[in-house]
Structure formats: structure tokens, C-alpha cells
């Protein structure tokens, strides 16, 4: 905790937040929100929470900002202005925000101090994880072991939630008919965007290394910040880079709609399947120590480490497929013909 940097970065974040609300242009608001996400990741790093910072950088500052751009591309850039009832809605919003803030501040008076060592979480829960992680699971990264082993149920349902989000976007946006009521008359663009040699060359050279780095993040999640979610999002971002620099149809040829949904399914099924395999071997659901019966030459402790690697791979596959699917749906407005 470096208080000087903490103070400076918090000031910058508050300025960014105010600017995002007050700028009247939706594209510029999305851009400044990207800067807000960048600075938020810096704040998490400075507090020492590196896995959270990694996830915020990849999801919030990376893919989420690109999805905002895709949404603004399909809709308008203007902020709508109501004709009547403006003061009433602003007064209502002010009262609601003040009441919520008041409730939060009153509740905060009962919290323990920041970093107090005599809270129940610090006395009983955290020392158990800190002392027993390496002994139980042979994985030095405590965040990964808590996420994937001690609290494995929650992560499984998080993966299912990501899959459901992808399905929801398909259910809302996907259109199959040739002519639709939602189509505007075909606009006449001044120039349709020519294929740019420099961006295509650099993207073509960089995409294999980006994917290799993403696989490294997934596999090395036991020893360094990383894990399944972050690696999956960076894999999806590499495909988004291909879709942006080349044509939309290139990515559609590699990862068609059928493969996206299928891979999303397979990712969740790998996770649940490993849990079910442990059930078949005679232990509880998601109790990886029983995997030592079928994996050769591992004892119970190493079996937990290998089980965690298996489910991280499942999570990465599911997240990659769903990120690509959500991007393809939003940027083409469901028609899958052309994109950003």
C-alpha cells in the first residue's frame, strides 16, 4: 500500500468517472470509460490484488470497451433529451442516490478498520488458506486454489452464467430472415473502409504470439497471476483483433456460429464432467483427490493440482467461445453479414 500513488490514482479515477457522465457524445463516453477501466486495474494492482487486476484489464479495459464501440456503431451517438419532466427525473435520481449513499455510510460505521487483523475473516478463514494451500494442493497461487478447488462450485456456476449470457445475446439479437422490419434503408457510405496493409501485416504477425501468451496464462495460473478466465478472454480478444483488421467473414470462417455455441457447451461440460468423474470414483462432487485413482503416478495432493488444471482449461474454452460469439452478434446486429 503506497499511499502517495493511491491518492493520485484515486483522484484520476474520480475525474474520469465525472467526465464519462458529463460528456454528451456516447462514443467519447465509451472511450473515457475505457480509460477509467485502465486506471481501476492500476488501483487493484497497487493494493496487491493481482488476479483481480488481470481480470479487470482483460475483461473491463479490453473486451468490454470493444463491445461498447460495437454497440455504438449499430445505434446512435447522441444522448436523447426528454422534452418534459427533466427536472422531476433529475430530482428523483438525486434523492435516490443520496438515500443509497446515506444507507451505505451508516452501514460502514460498523465495519472493522481497513486491514484490521482481529476480524473473524482474518482470524479463522485466511490463516487456514495461507498455511494449508501448499500442503493440501501443491499450488502456490492461493487465489487460484481458492477459486478452483476450495470454492469450485461457485466457479462452475460462474462459467454457466457466462454461457447463459452468450445464449441471451443470441436469443435477443440473432435474425435469420433476409428482409426484416428492423432494417434501415441501405445507407450510402462515402468510402467503405479500405483494407489497410500495415494493420493487416502487424495483426497477422501478432495473433499467434497473443494466442501463445493466452495459453501460457491459462497453464501458468498455478504459479503466477492468471487462470482460466483471463486466458480465455485474451484468446477471444485475439480473434476480435483478426475480425477488426481483416474482414468479418474471416473469423466467421474459422469460428462459425455452430462451433462457438458447441465450444461454449464443451467448456461447461468439461468442468461439470470432471466433477461428475469424481462422483463416479466414489467421492463428493468436485473432490479432485479421487482422480489419483485414474491418473497414473499421482498421489492425492498432485491429483488436486491436475484437477484444477483440467477445469481451468474448460473455463478458458467456454469463455473464448462466448466472447467471440457475443462480439460477432453485437457488431453485425444479428445478421452475420458485415461488421466493424
Amino acid at each position, binding site marked *: 500500500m503506497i499511499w502517495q500513488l493511491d491518492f493520485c490514482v484515486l483522484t484520476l479515477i474520480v475525474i474520469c468517472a465525472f467526465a464519462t457522465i458529463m460528456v454528451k457524445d456516447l462514443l467519447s463516453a465509451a472511450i473515457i470509460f475505457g480509460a477509467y477501466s485502465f486506471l481501476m486495474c*492500476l488501483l487493484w494492482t497497487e493494493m496487491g490484488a493481482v488476479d483481480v487486476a488481470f481480470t479487470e484489464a482483460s475483461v473491463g479495459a479490453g473486451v468490454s470497451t470493444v463491445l461498447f464501440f460495437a454497440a455504438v456503431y449499430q445505434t446512435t451517438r447522441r444522448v436523447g433529451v426528454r422534452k418534459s419532466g427533466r427536472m422531476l427525473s433529475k430530482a428523483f435520481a438525486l434523492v435516490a442516490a443520496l438515500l443509497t449513499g446515506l444507507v451505505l455510510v451508516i452501514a460502514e460505521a460498523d465495519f472493522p478498520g481497513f486491514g484490521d487483523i482481529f476480524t473473524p475473516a482474518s482470524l479463522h478463514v485466511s490463516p487456514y488458506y495461507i498455511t494449508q494451500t501448499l500442503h493440501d494442493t501443491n499450488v502456490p497461487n492461493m487465489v487460484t486454489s481458492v477459486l478452483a478447488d476450495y470454492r469450485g462450485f461457485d466457479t462452475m456456476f460462474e462459467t454457466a452464467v457466462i454461457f447463459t449470457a452468450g445464449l441471451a445475446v443470441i436469443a435477443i439479437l440473432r435474425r435469420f430472415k433476409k428482409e426484416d422490419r428492423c432494417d434501415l434503408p441501405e445507407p450510402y457510405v462515402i468510402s467503405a473502409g479500405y483494407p489497410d496493409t500495415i494493420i493487416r501485416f502487424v495483426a497477422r504477425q501478432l495473433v499467434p504470439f497473443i494466442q501463445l501468451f493466452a495459453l501460457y496464462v491459462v497453464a501458468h495460473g498455478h504459479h503466477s497471476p492468471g487462470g482460466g478466465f483471463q486466458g480465455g478472454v485474451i484468446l477471444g480478444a485475439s480473434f476480435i483483433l483478426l475480425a477488426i483488421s481483416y474482414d468479418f467473414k474471416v473469423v466467421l470462417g474459422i469460428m462459425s456460429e455452430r462451433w462457438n455455441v458447441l465450444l461454449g457447451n464443451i467448456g461447461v461440460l468439461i468442468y461439470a464432467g470432471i466433477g461428475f468423474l469424481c462422483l463416479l470414483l466414489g467421492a463428493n462432487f468436485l473432490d479432485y483427490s479421487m482422480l489419483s485413482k485414474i491418473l497414473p503416478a499421482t498421489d492425492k495432493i498432485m491429483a488436486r493440482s491436475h484437477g484444477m488444471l483440467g477445469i481451468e482449461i474448460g473455463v478458458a474454452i467456454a469463455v473464448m467461445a462466448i466472447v467471440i460469439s457475443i462480439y460477432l452478434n453485437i457488431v453485425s446486429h444479428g445478421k452475420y453479414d458485415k461488421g466493424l
Partner: protein
Amino acid sequence: MDSFFIGIGVALCFLILLTLHRAIQGPTAIDRIMGVNVIGTKTTILLVIIGSIYHRVDMFVDIALAYALLNFIVTIAASRYFHHRKNLTSSGYGFKFRSEEDK
């Protein structure tokens, strides 16, 4: 050496504040894209500096690499927007309708 790096970090935060002024004020949307690109690069450096202050650079280097990557992808995505919609501020559409051309 630690206090030297903290001083460098605070100086970089001050420079980020100055760049943020351009990112908020810039009259067109493209000025803002440029501002966010520069802020992203400065934040990558700041991440490695924080790693040096904590004496654990090996943890923070992976995050800095992913950061530089995503900064690049966001900037290219924001620039491709302007190949299809040509308006720099939020007034008007970015294209012309075909029926207007026929008039």
C-alpha cells in the same frame, strides 16, 4: 531507491492528469482516442514501477504485457469505427441515405 521510484510514479500520475485534460476536452472524438492510447502506455510503465517498489517484478510483468496488448486492440477497434461512420462529433449521421442522393 524505493522513494525514487515512488517519486517517478507520482510524476507519471501527474502527466496522466495532463493527458486526461486532452482526453476530456479534445474537440473531436479522435483526440480522445489518442489520449486514452497514451494513458494506456503510461499505465503499463506504472505497473512495472509498482512491481519494482514491491520487489516482486515477476508477478506484475504478466499483467503489464496483457495491458499493452489490450491497449493496442482497443485503439485499433476505436479507429475502425471511423471508417464506416464519418462524423467527428455527435451531430448528424455519419453517412448519407441513398434517397437524398437521388434528389
